[in-house]
């Protein structure tokens, strides 16, 4: 199977998992999928599925916790946990919540969901790696809307001042937040200039281009002094035409008519949809 098919299969799985769990942030998950896929499936991060807390693992902090479904699906895809765990998403007694609640999920470093926490946490782990001369890097995935939280910029300042070269912030710039576009709400124009002006190295990338992402994310930064911001231009809702770039899909499942588009574009059968829905309806 080529990677385009794999990614379509992962989007399909994200959608069906959301159906079985009663909903999820599909659009954010679709926007972040290639980034997470590159980190894990293309192994630009060092990790051990069977030893999630391996001390020298690279850390991925999912600061935009609402991309949880994408993260869970990729973690399951590479072997952190099985399909049985994934299919329990958002059910009573499952470890997988609509937002990731923390260390009980293999591969998840810290509870997120409230925005603007992850980069500071990553400053802590990156500082630890610097102090202890450990050979791991810290990747923090943020949303562009999330960057409206002031605490993000507290962390941006600290990372630069502490010369945390092994800290990499990936900003998933899909241009949308819950209620409108980011530029309408925050008037933010150039992410690159903003991060650069705080003393970070900055690169821009097409956040759905696996080759470009791989080239940037596989570069080890062990001897750098400046933290790196990767401005990843993405499409919120990527992969389903009616979702793309439309803020209404921030947290929404398709209605009957819309479902046909999802099924056609993600190669989903009626049986698969029915099965997922029955899991949700059966849950007590």
């Amino acid at each position, binding site marked *: 199977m080529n990677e385009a098919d794999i990614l379509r299969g992962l989007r399909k799985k994200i959608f069906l998992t959301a159906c079985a769990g009663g909903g999820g942030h599909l659009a954010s998950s679709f926007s972040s999928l290639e980034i997470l896929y590159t980190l894990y499936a293309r192994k630009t991060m060092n990790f051990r599925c069977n030893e999630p807390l391996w001390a020298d693992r690279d850390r991925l902090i999912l600061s935009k916790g609402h991309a949880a479904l994408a993260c869970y699906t990729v973690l399951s895809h590479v072997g952190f946990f099985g399909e049985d765990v994934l299919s329990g998403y958002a059910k009573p007694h499952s470890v997988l919540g609509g937002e990731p*609640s923390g260390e009980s999920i293999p591969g998840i470093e*810290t509870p997120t969901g409230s925005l603007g*926490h992850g980069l500071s*946490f990553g400053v*802590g782990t990156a500082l630890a*790696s610097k102090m202890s001369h450990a050979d791991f890097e810290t990747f923090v995935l943020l949303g562009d809307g999330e960057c409206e939280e002031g605490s993000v910029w507290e962390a941006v300042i600290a990372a630069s001042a502490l010369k945390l070269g092994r800290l990499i912030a990936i900003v998933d710039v899909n241009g949308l937040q819950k209620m409108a576009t980011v530029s309408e709400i925050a008037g933010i124009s150039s992410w690159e200039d903003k991060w650069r002006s705080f003393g970070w190295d900055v690169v821009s990338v097409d956040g759905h281009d696996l080759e470009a992402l791989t080239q940037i994310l596989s570069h080890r930064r062990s001897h750098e002094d400046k933290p790196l911001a990767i401005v990843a231009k993405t499409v919120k809702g990527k992969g389903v035409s009616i979702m793309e770039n439309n803020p209404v899909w921030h947290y929404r499942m398709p209605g009957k008519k819309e479902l046909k588009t999802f099924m056609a574009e993600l190669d989903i059968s009626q049986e698969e949809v029915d099965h997922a829905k029955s899991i949700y309806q059966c849950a007590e």
Partner: protein
Amino acid sequence: MQRAYINALNKLAQEDDRVVSVLADNGTDYDWLFQRDFPERFFNVGIAEQNMVAMGAGLSTCGYIPFVLTAGSFLAYRAYEFIRDDVCFPCRNVKLVASGGGMSISNLGSTHHATEDLANLRALPNLTILSPASPAEVEAAVAEAYKIEGPVYIRMGMNGEKDFFPASRSGYPYQAQQIADGTDAAIITTGSIAEQALAAAQKLTTLGISTAVYVFSSIKPFDSETVLKLAAKVRLLATVEEHSITGGLGSAVAEVLCELPEHAVLCRIGLAGVFSQGYGTLKQMYRMNGLDAEAIADRVLKTWRKLS
């Protein structure tokens, strides 16, 4: 208390290279001693309390033991959600140290006073809350916080407090300590205001109301047993705290008493539905806010008279 804190922290750092000091540009007068001895483990991360707390969480997951410190008001209020989500919820080994607890940053006014910190933090699962009343107890609190594998909040004063009662000899005093005898009434207090409570009790005793004083240096866990014993022994219990009477020590005592069919009358002395008033020295703040020994004795006396 600040000097005691740094002395204790330096001792720990000497013994364990995982101990790090993290400040949000609002340290004690003695942080330079830590910085001098352990420059590679000293971080002032700027005026950014939320970042400081979540950074501490990140450090703790890599095996470090961060003591993050700033003024109690900035720590317990501004960084509250970070304390909740990044430290308490995942039960991380982060030590949250409030300098200037209560009204001890007296002349800067209410924005700098931590007089509701016990109320909001007491609601957080997994958090141990220590409220030392003297420099000796601050030292013990630092050692105790280090022993606990999990989040700890230490609430310190910063007004040159003295060791005005004998220090516990058996580790950190989770059990309330009796610092004055009495049979009619008992004052339950915490933190450096205990000195005012002691003076108030002495005055009450000379007026014929034999008043005991108990210092509760741990707010969570809370020594309910001593409260229960006292509630059965004396007719009047008074709580004295440099804090709102809502949610802090007074509430903790009330929560214990409310489960009893019969108990002593409780009089909660603290900030009653108001922010701290005025500016000045801590002593002046106590006077203006009805929390000096005179005012405490007066409140207890008035309540006592209603009982008789």
